């Protein structure tokens, strides 16, 4: 006998007839069967609401199983039929006083779901009773009902004093009731503008005491609520954390992860490094153990580990092996592991990591292979001592001639060249053998960049570039821009070799192309070369240093995410405000004990990850995306006196720059402009300037800046904000 038969499409009339049938049904077997059919139809999405009045009659049947199904029905349809729902109220109020606590709880629970004004009105009084019911099961159900009611009508809950009653429940002798009361309060606090949960130490320690005895879920509520406790003294924070430590051994991964979150949060209020490091050590085994759970849990753990190690690298510094990828790990787990391996890599374990990553580069999973190749390149940039080994690993991979591996390798080799200029040029010859295989824009652009940059060392640079030029007009923009710059570089370095190509490419760029970026860059180069070839040397100026620093998360974002360990934000590595509509932000609340860690390298711009629909799968890994940091003084003639001037005056700024745009731009005192930002990105300045682009002076400055920027970092092209007012300018 199975339930599947109830899934047959039941006709309303038939069901009604069965429900009201006068046949002898002393044991309610028939009613039960009909109810099953109705519930089955309901789950299939068939509209069963016409049966409402008949169902109300069934409510009085004193069989728990039937009662449950009736309640299920009411929850589903009562909201759409408010007038009908009223008819149920009498039965509800009777059930709320039933001697059986199970029924009392069930009815108060169901009433909370039926959010119809009149039902809610008649819920208030029974709810008040239930919150003080002698049976803890009823009390805990009532606590949750307050949260339900709050979402329906906040003012009502506040007026009727339910919040105070919830607060009283925190002192309840039954730990599970305490857990549910705190869950309700937390939810109310997160949704409300004027209610904010704050726990003082005495309540917090009561809650922690309840931790040991309540159910696993209630434990997560209590732990979650501890995030609202602001320790006033370092000792309090340590004491609280020590009492949470046993939770790290819980079988429920949600309890474990929430405990980790609370402990890391409390560390902000500890002044002794010994305490912090002894607690950090205790976090290691549970984090590693989470990795042996199902893939979903593993994924959440990995994404969170990635956040934790950026703040507290000591937690997992000796645990490299657990992040080695297994052949049959799902791809999202592999990618998350790879990123962690990269972060944990240091000069001591680099050999181990490199061997492992090389292994991945030979796997079948193309996406993973690419990330592995890219990782080798990033390791070279991160750890100078290992650069040599990384390069030879990359060369080995190039020998395999697997097309996508070669292309990926060339892209990262460009970055290595930028990081360590004039050191590994000997391999250029090898790279050139693969020129014809390049068919991906990024790899092509990288190769062109290398040729342009080392045009004076590569004998046949002109021929190679000329080869690329054949397809210039069909190539994607990325390649065109790279080629344009490379050809100009070639001309500057070896005028004789470039003199044929340059006019050809400039002409294409300015006349044949309908891409404004390319055209503008073409014009600028053209004018530059024709008016002041000496100034054009700026194109060859030193490139800003790249480092894997820029892969680090923005410190502000990191702090925010650390308060959200285990949440969706921690998986996307995005601030919750960016993807949620209703969200109350969290901050580290100051207290005398708060250890302010001033972020060492504040950055002007929160790194936005490219957001596509599958962002959870491929976040954060993909790009290098260096922030230019302009340490280079081109001509070194900045006048220190001038920096003292009033920087807030835009005219001064512009005058200062116009004196000699090509030399001044790098000494531009942008850090004075925004004193709280060390690393102000020039691009942002330009965006600011474009806002007043119609002023001729500003326009000139803007152009001057762009010229230098063009060659700084091609990969940042996409990040340009649309300069407002650009259209208008062209029309004038």
């Amino acid at each position: 006998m199975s339930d599947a038969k109830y899934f047959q499409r039941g006709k309303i009339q038939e069901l009604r007839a069965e429900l009201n049938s006068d046949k002898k049904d002393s044991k309610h077997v028939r009613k039960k069967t009909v109810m099953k059919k109705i519930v089955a139809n309901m789950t299939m999405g068939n509209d069963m609401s016409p049966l409402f009045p008949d169902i109300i009659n069934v409510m009085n049947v004193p069989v728990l199983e039937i009662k449950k199904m009736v309640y299920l029905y009411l929850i589903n349809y009562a909201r759409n039929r408010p007038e009908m729902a009223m008819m149920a109220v009498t039965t509800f109020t009777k059930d709320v006083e039933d001697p059986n606590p199970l029924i009392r709880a069930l009815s108060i629970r169901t009433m909370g779901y039926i959010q119809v004004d009149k039902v809610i009105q008649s819920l208030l009084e029974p709810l008040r009773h239930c919150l003080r019911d002698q049976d803890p099961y009823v009390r805990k159900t009532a606590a949750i009902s307050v949260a339900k009611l709050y979402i329906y009508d906040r003012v009502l809950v506040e007026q009727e004093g339910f919040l105070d009653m919830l607060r009283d429940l925190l002192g309840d002798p039954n730990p599970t009731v305490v857990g549910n009361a705190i869950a309700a309060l937390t939810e109310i606090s997160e949704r409300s503008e004027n209610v904010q949960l704050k726990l003082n130490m005495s309540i917090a320690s009561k809650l922690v005491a309840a931790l040991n005895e309540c159910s696993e879920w209630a434990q997560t509520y209590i732990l979650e609520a501890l995030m609202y406790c602001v320790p006033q003294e370092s000792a309090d924070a340590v004491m609280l954390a020590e009492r949470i430590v046993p939770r790290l051994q819980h079988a429920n991964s949600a309890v474990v992860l929430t405990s980790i979150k609370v402990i890391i949060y409390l560390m902000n209020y500890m002044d002794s490094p010994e305490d912090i490091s002894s607690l950090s050590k205790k976090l290691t085994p549970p984090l590693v153990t989470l990795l042996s759970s199902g893939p979903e849990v593993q994924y959440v753990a990995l994404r969170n580990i990635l956040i934790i190690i950026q703040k507290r690298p000591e937690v997992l510094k000796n645990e490299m092996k657990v992040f080695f990828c297994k052949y049959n790990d799902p791809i999202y787990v592999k990618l998350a592991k790879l990123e962690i391996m990269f972060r944990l890599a240091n000069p001591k374990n680099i050999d181990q990591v490199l061997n492992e990553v090389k292994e991945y580069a030979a796997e079948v999973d193309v996406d993973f292979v690419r990330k592995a190749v890219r990782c080798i390149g990033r390791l070279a940039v991160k750890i100078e001592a290992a650069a040599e080994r990384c390069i030879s690993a990359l060369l080995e991979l190039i020998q395999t001639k697997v097309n996508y591996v070669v292309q990926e390798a060339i892209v990262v080799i460009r970055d290595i060249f930028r990081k360590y200029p004039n050191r590994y040029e000997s391999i250029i010859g090898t790279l050139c053998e693969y020129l014809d295989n390049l068919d991906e824009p990024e790899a092509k652009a990288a190769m062109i960049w290398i040729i342009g940059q080392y045009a004076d060392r590569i004998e046949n640079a002109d021929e190679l570039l000329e080869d690329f030029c054949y397809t210039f007009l069909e190539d994607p923009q990325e390649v065109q821009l790279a080629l344009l710059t490379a050809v100009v570089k070639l001309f500057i370095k070896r005028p004789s070799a470039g003199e044929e190509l340059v006019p050809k490419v400039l002409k294409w760029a300015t006349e044949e192309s309908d891409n404004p970026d390319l055209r503008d860059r073409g014009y600028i180069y053209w004018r530059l070369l024709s008016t002041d070839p000496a100034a054009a040397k700026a194109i060859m100026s030193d490139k800003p240093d790249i480092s894997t620093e820029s892969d680090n998360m923005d410190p502000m974002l990191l702090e925010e995410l650390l308060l959200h360990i285990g949440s969706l934000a921690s998986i996307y590595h995005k601030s919750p405000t960016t993807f949620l509509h209703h969200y109350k932000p969290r901050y580290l609340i100051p207290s005398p004990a708060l250890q302010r860690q001033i972020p060492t390298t504040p950055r002007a711009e929160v790194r936005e990850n490219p957001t596509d629909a599958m962002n959870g799968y491929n976040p954060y890994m993909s790009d290098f995306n260096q922030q230019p940091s302009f340490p280079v003084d081109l001509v070194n003639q900045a006048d220190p006196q001038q920096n003292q001037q009033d920087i807030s005056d835009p005219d001064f700024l512009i005058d200062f720059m116009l004196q000699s745009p090509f030399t001044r731009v790098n000494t531009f005192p942008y850090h004075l402009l925004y004193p709280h930002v060390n690393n102000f990105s020039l691009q942002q300045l330009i965006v600011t300037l474009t806002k007043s682009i119609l002023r001729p002076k500003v326009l000139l400055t803007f152009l001057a800046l762009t010229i230098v920027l063009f060659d700084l970092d091609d990969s940042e092209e996409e990040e340009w904000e649309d300069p407002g007012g650009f259209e208008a300018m062209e029309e004038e």
Partner: protein
Amino acid sequence: MLNSLFVLNAQGKIIIEKHWRGVIPRQVVDKFNDQVVTFLAKPVYTPYTGRSLEDGSATSAQQRNGDLLVQRFALEDLPPVIDTPHYQFLNVQRGGLIWLSPVESEVEPQMIFEFIHRIIDVVQEYLGDVSEMSIRDNFVIVYQLLEEMMDYGYPLTTETSVLKEVIPPPTVYNKVYSTVSAAAGVGQKLPSGTLSSIPWRKLGIKYANNEIYFDVVEEVDAILEKNGSIISAEAHGTLNVNCRLSGMPDLSMTFINPRVIDDVSFHPCVRYQKYVSDKVLSFVPPDGHFKLMTYRVNLPSGQLIPLQVRPQVTATKNGGKFEVVVTPRPTEGKAIEHLVVTISMGKACTGVNASCSMGDHFYDSTNKTLRWEVGKVDIRGRPPTLSGSFSSSVDALDNPLSITLGFQINMYAVSGLKVDSLKIYHEGYKPYKGVRSLTRAGKFQVRT
């Protein structure tokens, strides 16, 4: 907090839906299915086609290398959390079903995954198997379970023993019983366990024969290098208990060598402080089957791995030759059973020829895997060997083989963990006590 839960079959059709906080329209599932379709259709690698598409010819590079490897993701590769503009889709895939929870607000995914896992476990316990068929056949029970396990997005009762008091499992006995005595009125009493300080055990349990069984199951996760050296190896142990004891026994269990354990997590019944101070497991057990603890042991020395595998792959023209030798290691005289070696031949493989010294081998041409069922291996005999050749459309070295192993060893714990004693307090009887151990392969992988 969990808003809604949809259970979908592999085709994305709704089998059952449950809403705890207002109804999320079913159309949301279509959105999820769209995401799945886009994800599955997304080529991981498409050669650059900027020009080649227009004139219809492949670029020279593609022609030369022939690596038009357009690989697509499998459903298992779908990330468990998917970000879309309105909903965040949390999903768990188990046994061909997708358990989908769309959420609109900030949640703790770990809690949702944990909860969904729990539902699956409970349904498994109730119905014996979790599949579209079994859920459809017992959907009223599943629905009641969902209702009982969660209230307004807050997990309510997730202990099977307590649930069973509220919702009787669909046994033949219960079916007969409910038909005969359905009119007994509100017969059910408040589940006694829900709120006592020992929520996992109810009062008044009685057995004619008091017995308790412990099952130590250890799974070996390992990655071996082709020369046999170990890259990483650890064992994940679970201590499963089947407890059939009367009354409220208080148990105390010791191990001979608790030091081998690197990390451990316990069922809520275990008194943690006692373990920290004395390395003693002290607990009042739940009734019936439960997982007392799980633990992790690093296996640093090669001696502890029960098997040694040495694959050899040599490339030939259009393919390669391979030989795999499995050498058993001493395992306290216990035989290695159900040894299965699975070799993924790579996507480009076109055919395999193999012969083995023991057991049987099959080649699955759709999955491109060679499965060698060795069976029982005796340490004294000659080590089993599989050798053969394969043909492939790409260079063999670009496409390395990957070997995974499955095996099982009865009455043997690879970590060396051994139960020393079990004492019972608060009850007068002397129960029958049994301990079994089992070691099997978890993710056991050999690189070539």
